[in-house]
């Protein structure tokens, strides 16, 4: 195993909302959007580390924060052993030369007012590399190298197709002969045939120039195709890191597994493959679930000891608990279902019963063993009387998954999950 | 009445009509359309923005306020003053004149008018410590120093100048306010306080009309005051409103919305003459228009230069063109008909060559000057000023630009005095209506070295005026005033322009001759 080029430890990046002067005057507390929440990983020299996840999981923010394009909220990033956020002067210059980035959107990645030659030359100008003529020559070489022609130096970006622009962006990233390149969804805006060309180009360049890549992508096929190792992100956290082949063949985390299963394969066998589709949506990073962040969708949440119900019924109870804890159960609608036009001020027992029935019918599709059902009924009755505090069902149903957030275990193929053997 | 009159239903008509029980809508419609015969509407060019009768010295304001706060005397331009509220005057000597008041005068609120009221009003006019700093006091009652009530109907007025001058002054500017009412309701004896308000009750004079409706800045409606001591005035109701545009006033006249309007521009004379039932009435006013030149700053310290300016301007031509003939070129500070007008003095005639050589003589050849011109105050004022400036500019050795500003600027410039450190605008256009009918009023404020507001600092002229003020014999005094005018012509403290005509549009069936002093008195009218 080679030494890490980049080593990330506990990286956090929060965005703040409601942070204006007016908000302060109003006494609104700023709301943190936890885009990246405590990442730790290494990128090893010469490898391609894939960072995969669905939209909004914080993977692009990670890429940008690692390069210092965003101020981190917490954590350290070391590049070649030096803390990136402490760099200044010469050393910072050096870092800017050694670490580069290629972005997703080929239409936004090049300044439309600059010729592509000038765009590629810009890093050279900034770092004052060589003479003007040397720089121009270097740019022409680079353009040739990425499959364009040096003669296109004076063209403007709009004269190029998406794939060609992406080649220019790659040329620009390579201009300073960097050690390390962040590839932020470099092909996701491209058609599949062009994507393949770019992927091939990236592979070739890596071989030739001994580059280290951090490849950010939501496309598992792409990840699998070019990455040596993969880190899977969910809601600002890494849930699993591992060797590509190993991770793809025996995923450790339920999320990784679901993710892999969800991808339709472009093969004739695809129609016969059965998938266990993951339910629900990704929760908001403003208010991530407690404990394991995946628990709200996880097909294998761990019930508390001694609780003997099947996973689907438990899932239902968990969902209900979410509503109760957030007090987002729509009481008015339930009262309507129970036959009351408006919620009664002081509901009598009959009313409460009607409410509970309506709520059970509404929120529990699966039958729950009697002993557990009672708890739910009590909770609903409490809600009917307005006692949200006592209606959380926490004592009866709380899972380890919601209490503690599992850390990546210290193995070669670390996984953050409470399940044993994972 | 022409277009739109069918809709011209006013609330009072409705009130009247609906006052009669059982009047049907048809009947109602039938009695509309015709202006109630006993009502007169007068459209001014400026609506009073103050209701304190002492806090102004503007013609349009007098037109409104004099009907409410009647003058103590009747002033007839050219003829002098006649008894009104004051029945008799007696010069006691030693700078004191005694006034005998009528004993049957009541205020609109029912209080009897007493000598206390008159004396207090005069004191409030001339003494800035009591009430508002009065423009009338500063300009109108310049020589009056105070007044005292001797008994219920006797007031003694003291003054610093000649009794004749004082008589001209209080004859024109003395009014009576209700002392107790003013103090109780408006703190009117507090320094700086003027009477203000937006209700009819905020007016309280002894005039033949009392206020019944008042919309600030827009309209005031007067009705005959039933307890008026004198002759019943000709109209039951009088409405005053205003329109800053001559064309607007003419429109109102055309459509019958108004019966009398003032300040019709020569341009609109045609329209009025062509309209039905209305006609033009006009008179050469006591108002002279001129361009003061403050002689404490360059280049106006040179008499040659000032004379040159007078030669440069073709004032007769301006009258013919800009004023379409509605005026007369003038060569002295006051208009004909004014006591002391010097009929021997001819206007400066335009003589470019003379002007240019005088400029050379003055040593100010090649100078650049600016003429500040007010807009909307006098007959075609901006146009007159612009033309005058351009005519000066046509001299080879003078550059002159006109700067057209609001009247307030000019007015401030005029009263800024002659301190060279203070003067920002030494050359401007202004008009002065010598409404007292006496030259003194036309020259004293401008030339007397005692006057803070003087625009010209010259001992000879000032002394001549001072001398006139102490002469008691009217003929001698007139002769001295004629001399003052002569000196003024020669020293050219102004570029003398012209005397303007007052042009009125009046309903044909109203018998009324416009007055030289520009006031419009309803009691001088007849149907």
């Amino acid at each position, binding site marked *: 195993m080679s030494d890490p080029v980049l080593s990330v430890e506990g990286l956090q990046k929060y965005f703040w909302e409601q942070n204006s002067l007016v908000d302060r005057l109003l006494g609104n507390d700023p709301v943190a959007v936890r885009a990246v929440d405590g990442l730790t990983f290494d990128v090893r020299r010469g490898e391609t580390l894939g960072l995969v996840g669905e939209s909004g999981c914080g993977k692009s923010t990670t890429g940008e924060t690692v390069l210092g394009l965003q101020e981190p909220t917490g954590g350290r990033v070391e590049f070649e052993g030096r803390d990136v956020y402490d760099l200044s002067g010469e050393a910072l210059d050096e870092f*800017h030369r050694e670490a580069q980035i290629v972005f*997703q959107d080929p239409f936004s*990645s090049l300044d439309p007012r600059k010729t592509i030659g000038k765009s590629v030359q810009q890093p050279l100008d900034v770092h004052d590399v060589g003479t003007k003529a040397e720089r121009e020559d270097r740019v022409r070489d680079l353009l040739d190298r990425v499959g364009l022609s040096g003669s296109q130096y004076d063209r403007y970006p709009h004269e190029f197709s998406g794939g060609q622009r992406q080649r220019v962006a790659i040329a620009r990233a390579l201009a300073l002969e960097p050690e390390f390149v962040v590839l932020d969804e470099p092909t996701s805006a491209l058609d599949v045939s062009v994507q393949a060309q770019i992927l091939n180009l990236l592979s070739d360049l890596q071989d030739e120039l001994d580059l280290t890549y951090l490849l950010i992508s939501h496309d598992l096929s792409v990840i699998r195709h070019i990455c040596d190792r993969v880190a899977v992100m969910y809601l600002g956290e890494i849930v699993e890191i591992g060797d590509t082949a190993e991770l793809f063949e025996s995923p450790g985390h339920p999320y990784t597994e679901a993710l892999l299963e969800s991808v339709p394969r472009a093969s004739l066998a695809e129609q016969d493959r059965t998938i266990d589709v993951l339910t629900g949506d990704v929760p908001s990073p403003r208010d991530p679930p407690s404990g394991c962040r995946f628990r709200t969708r996880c097909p294998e949440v761990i019930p508390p000891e001694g609780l003997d119900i099947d996973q689907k019924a438990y899932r239902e109870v968990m969902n209900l608990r979410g509503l109760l804890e957030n007090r987002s159960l729509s009481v008015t609608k339930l009262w309507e279902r129970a036959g009351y036009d408006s919620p009664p001020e002081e509901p009598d027992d009959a009313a409460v019963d009607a409410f509970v029935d309506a709520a059970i019918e509404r929120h529990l599709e699966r039958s729950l063993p009697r002993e557990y059902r009672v708890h739910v009924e009590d909770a609903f009755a409490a809600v009917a009387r307005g006692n949200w505090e006592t209606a959380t069902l926490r004592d009866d149903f709380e899972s380890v998954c919601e209490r503690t957030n599992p850390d990546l275990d210290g193995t070669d193929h670390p996984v953050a999950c409470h399940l044993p053997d994972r | 009445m022409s277009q739109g009159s069918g809709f011209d239903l006013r609330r009072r008509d409705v009130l009247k009509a609906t006052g009669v029980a059982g009047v049907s809508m048809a009947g109602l419609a039938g009695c509309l359309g015709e202006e109630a015969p006993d009502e007169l509407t007068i459209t001014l060019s400026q609506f009073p923005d103050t209701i304190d009768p002492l806090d102004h010295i503007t013609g349009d304001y007098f037109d409104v306020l004099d009907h409410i706060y009647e003058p103590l005397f009747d002033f007839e331009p050219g003829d002098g003053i006649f008894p009104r509220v004051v029945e008799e005057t007696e010069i006691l000597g030693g700078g004191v004149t005694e006034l005998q008041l009528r004993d049957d005068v009541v205020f609109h609120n029912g209080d009897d008018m007493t000598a206390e009221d008159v004396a207090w009003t005069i004191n409030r006019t001339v003494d800035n410590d009591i009430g508002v700093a009065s423009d009338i006091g500063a300009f109108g009652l310049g020589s009056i120093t105070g007044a005292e009530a001797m008994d219920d109907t006797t007031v003694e007025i003291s003054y610093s100048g000649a009794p004749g001058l004082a008589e001209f002054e209080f004859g024109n500017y003395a009014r009576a306010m209700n002392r107790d009412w003013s103090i109780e309701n408006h703190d009117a004896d507090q320094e700086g306080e003027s009477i203000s308000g937006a209700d009819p009750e905020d007016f309280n004079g002894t005039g033949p009309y009392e206020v019944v409706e008042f919309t600030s800045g827009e309209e005031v409606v007067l009705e005959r005051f039933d307890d008026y001591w004198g002759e019943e005035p000709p109209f039951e109701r009088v409405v005053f409103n205003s329109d800053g545009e001559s064309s607007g006033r003419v429109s109102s006249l055309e459509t019958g919305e108004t019966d009398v309007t003032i300040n019709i521009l020569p341009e609109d004379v045609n329209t009025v003459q062509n309209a039905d039932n209305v006609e033009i009435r006009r008179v050469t006013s006591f108002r002279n228009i001129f361009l003061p030149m403050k002689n404490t700053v360059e280049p106006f310290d040179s008499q040659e230069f000032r004379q040159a300016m007078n030669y440069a301007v073709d004032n007769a031509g301006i009258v*013919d063109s800009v004023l379409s003939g509605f005026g007369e070129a003038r060569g002295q500070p006051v208009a004909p008909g004014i006591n002391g007008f010097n009929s021997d003095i001819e206007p400066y005639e335009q003589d470019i060559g003379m002007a240019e050589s005088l400029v050379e003589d003055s040593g100010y050849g090649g100078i650049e000057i600016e003429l500040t011109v007010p807009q909307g105050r006098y007959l075609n004022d901006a146009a007159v000023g*612009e033309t005058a400036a351009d005519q000066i500019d046509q001299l080879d050795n003078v550059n002159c630009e006109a700067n057209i500003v609001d009247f307030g600027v000019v007015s401030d410039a005029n009263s800024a005095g002659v301190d060279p450190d203070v003067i920002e605008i030494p050359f401007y256009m202004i008009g002065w209506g010598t409404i007292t009918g006496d030259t003194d009023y036309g020259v004293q404020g401008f030339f007397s070295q005692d006057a803070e507001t003087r625009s010209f600092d010259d001992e000879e002229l000032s002394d001549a005026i001072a001398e006139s003020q102490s002469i008691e014999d009217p003929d001698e005094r007139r002769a001295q005033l004629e001399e003052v005018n002569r000196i003024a012509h020669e020293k050219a403290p102004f570029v003398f322009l012209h005397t303007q005509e007052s042009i009125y549009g009046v309903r044909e069936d109203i018998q009324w001759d416009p007055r030289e002093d520009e006031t419009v008195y309803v009691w001088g009218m007849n149907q």
Partner: protein
Amino acid sequence: MISDRITSNLRRTFRESLLPKIGMVLLVSIVLMAVFAPLLATHDPTRTGYYDEGGNAYPPIGTEYTTQIAVDGEIQEVEVTADSAHVLGTNNVGQDVYSRFVYGARISLLVGFSATLMAMLVGVPIGLIAGYYGGRVDDALMRVADTMLAFPALVLALALIGVFGESPVYVPDPIVSLGLADGMPESIPIPGTVTIVAALVIWVWFARVARGEALSLRNEEYVKAAKSFGTTDRDVLIGHVLPNSVTPIIVLATIQVAVIILLEASLAYLGFSGTTLSWGYEIERGQDILRTRPWVSTLPGIGIVLTVIAVNLLGDWFRDALDPNLDEGQRGA
């Protein structure tokens, strides 16, 4: 800064639509008229006294009017006929209406363009910096902008002029000083305060647009890329953000020129411009004599309308070709 693509877009839109052509022809004619005013004018526009022998202003050629004059105290009606030397007649002080019309274009355009330029020079950098850095600077700018916008432009202008006076600035006329035109004024008065006030009134719009651009541009990937290899903020602002904000700013500037021409005209109309050689003032002058000599007000009004239309047409053209997203709300000022 103006790339090929922009010019080609402009060219194409110009080709395809009639309106930009009209606008272009109009504006070019008006600009030429303004530039060569001393050559095109037939009389010194400030020279008064062009009357007939009765002292009456001439009507435009082909028309006549009757007016009343007082001769020796008597009112007489006289017919006034046109004079071939005064194509569009003369005004009430006997100035040549045509010559004043020609010169009026100078004031309108000079004020319009110079105030816009000033506003741009002030507003754009402030807006770019606020938008680029965000945070407190931006917060402050937006509050200032809100405050400025709470004043109606005209009202604010009136208040400012009330404070600072009108101060016309006399600018020498190059054509006259070269001796190319005889008998024309050697300098023309530019309403100085009006120009500065207009700039003060509208700079906020530039700041807002520039801010918006910077705000979105700072998230553009090429900007991030530039930062990633160590470009300084200053270079990013000058090298990327500014050039890419140019288009909407140009479109806005065009709209604002129109706005300012109207503002100047309004101020001149109200008598606050400090010069009489302005279309707006000329309309005011004609207001009193609208009934008898309507041409005095009418012609300068047409001048304003045509100029503003020309500028607006070009603005529409720019917007259509360059930046379809800039909305009409900017027309506020």
